[in-house]
């Protein structure tokens, strides 16, 4: 009942320090009266103080020793759990020397979220090539966190705003490669993980999934492509056998307007832009990236490091705030479900 009191603050990673992560964290803290859940930032407190001055963002910064100190500090200052950066931060110019600290911030946030010392983890955007240069071997956050959590199946990426949740079955591949990579197993895996997450993290008792077709008009009975018949429909049949409510394959161009959205809780999309075009068209700035299938809750803003405007204080914190709110709601939902489960057991 008193979930708000007992939920520990969220852990927010620094992301690429030369990007906009620090300043949008300061802005999100300044918006704390506007239903932004308590959080602490894992970053270098000195550089955050300098950044607050540089950008003219009127925000107090206070270093904390443990995640448990964050709740008491949050009302008066942005709590920062120190993760020292060896190289000076130059906005817009990432330094490989800071890459190990960027990764450590992710490791620590994941550890806190997993052990329950943080309610969930929220990640600021990283700059992948800088991390690759420093020896990072994972394509991105989603895959790295799956490895950290020791998952034997891939985690699943969901993008969500208030009006729409989409799950791209294939992600960062060329369109050609995405079509080649599409198979029924991948759709079934995404469907299972999504349905389970909608129940556990979003509180939807009987989730309804819609599955988009790949081709125009969903192939029109095979006249414009056979993937619906050969791959998508069999995957839908398998998900239904598992008791999951699934509709489709549906033509993608009529799947996203308001009346259609009332018919499902999430859409499985066959390729990146099939998911991202509707999401960005509906909510350009408020989209949140959610990793499903992890033993803890992780969200992130749906934008990049924005080097071009880093350090100017002009970035919008809207997506980060949406990510913090969504992580908080999901973590409460998951904790509530766990409590209920225990009560029944």
């Amino acid at each position, binding site marked *: 009942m008193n979930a708000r009191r007992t939920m520990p603050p969220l852990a927010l990673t620094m992301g690429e320090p030369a990007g906009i992560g620090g300043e949008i964290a300061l802005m999100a803290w300044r918006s704390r009266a506007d239903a932004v859940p308590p959080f602490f930032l894992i970053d270098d407190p000195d550089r955050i103080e300098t950044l607050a001055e540089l950008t003219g963002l009127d925000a107090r910064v206070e270093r904390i020793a443990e995640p448990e100190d964050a709740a008491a500090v949050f009302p008066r200052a942005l709590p920062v759990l120190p993760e020292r950066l060896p190289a000076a931060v130059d906005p817009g110019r990432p330094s490989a020397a800071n890459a190990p600290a960027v990764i450590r911030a992710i490791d620590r946030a994941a550890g806190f979220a997993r052990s329950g010392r943080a309610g969930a983890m929220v990640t600021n955007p990283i700059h992948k090539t800088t991390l690759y240069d420093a020896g990072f071997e994972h394509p991105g956050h989603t895959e790295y966190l799956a490895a950290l959590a020791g998952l034997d199946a891939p985690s699943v990426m969901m993008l969500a705003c208030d009006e729409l949740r989409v799950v791209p079955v294939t992600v960062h591949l060329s*369109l050609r490669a995405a079509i080649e990579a599409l198979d029924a197993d991948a759709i079934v895996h995404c469907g299972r993980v999504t349905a389970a997450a909608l129940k556990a993290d979003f509180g939807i008792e009987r989730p309804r999934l819609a599955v988009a077709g790949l081709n*125009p008009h969903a192939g029109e009975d095979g006249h414009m492509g056979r993937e619906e018949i050969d791959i998508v429909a069999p995957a839908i049949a398998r998900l239904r056998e598992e008791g999951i409510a699934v509709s489709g394959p549906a033509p993608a161009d009529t799947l*996203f*307007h308001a009346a259609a959205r009332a018919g499902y809780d999430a859409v499985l999309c066959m*390729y990146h832009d*099939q998911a991202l*075009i509707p999401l960005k068209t509906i909510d*350009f700035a408020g989209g949140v990236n959610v990793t499903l299938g992890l033993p803890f809750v992780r969200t992130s803003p749906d934008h990049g490091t924005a080097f071009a405007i880093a350090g100017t204080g002009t970035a919008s914190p809207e997506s980060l705030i949406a990510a913090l709110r969504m992580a908080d709601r999901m973590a409460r939902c998951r904790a509530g479900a766990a409590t209920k489960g225990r009560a029944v057991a």
Partner: protein
Amino acid sequence: MKPVVGVLLGDPNGVGPELAAKLLAAAGTRAEARVLAIGDLGVFRAGAAVAGVEIPLNVIEDAAAANFDPAVLDFLSVPTIAPEEVTPGRAGAAAGRSVYETVKVAVALAKAGEIDGFCFAPMNKGALKAGGSPHGDEHILFAELLGYDGPYCEHNVLGDLWTTRATSHIPLKDVAENITTGRVLEMTRLAHRTLSGAGYGSPRIAVCALNPHGGDGGLFGREEIDVIAPAVEAAQAEGIAAQGPFPADTVFLKARDGAYDAVVTMYHDQGQIAMKLMGFGSGVTVSGGLPVPIATPASGTAFDIVGKGVASAEGMRQAFLLVCRMAGTKKARDAAAQ
């Protein structure tokens, strides 16, 4: 002098006749152009009854008899279907033949210069083919009837945002190999030509990327670098205000907010997902490239709501206004050239 714009009733079994009647009865419609309704009188009267409108008619057998009195609608009677052959809410060959015969009349009038363009209420491609048309795709049919063998395409229009696609009704796996520099350039030129014809001075055209994040510098596909960017550069060299390639997930919002007049997309759903989200009921399809302005609402025959009088005529109105705009621009330019 305002252009003469034909209005066709569409498939008699669908919502077309209701929509045409609503359009023709609306205050203002006949102020935009000299309007000539073309179709089967019985079909029109049935549509007007469903729409609940009464329009004084000047029924004529020859377009030359039109007198364009604003208070009386000139109706060119083309008897094509008997009342008992109309099966509301169901596709049928008789209705398709009615559409086909009417289209032939309208195209002949356009070729003869008796009308300056036309809009048509929704038709059914399957019925059109079953009714004797050599093509179910109306754009191909128009080009053939007009004897036009240049490039043409379908534009989807929403308000002041136009899209043109480099590929259309083909499997997605065939898209990449069909995206060539020549094809993208040709569609960019067509967008430029059609929008210029609709009165846009130097239309601003955004060209979409094919891959996520526009390929991210070649990380997720090279079509942007090898195929699309060269087409954009070639278009620019011809003086076309084209830019791109741009990632497809954000380009439509920028265009809607006024940064571009047209977006050239690489495949069907790339444009249609965004366009249908931004305006499900008011979209228009324009047959671009043809020598005669022709447009239709993006929505279809809506067989499930035929006869209820609830179908929205907004797309029909927008299609009509676009034809008026294109025909008016053409008329003004022709007059200036003389």
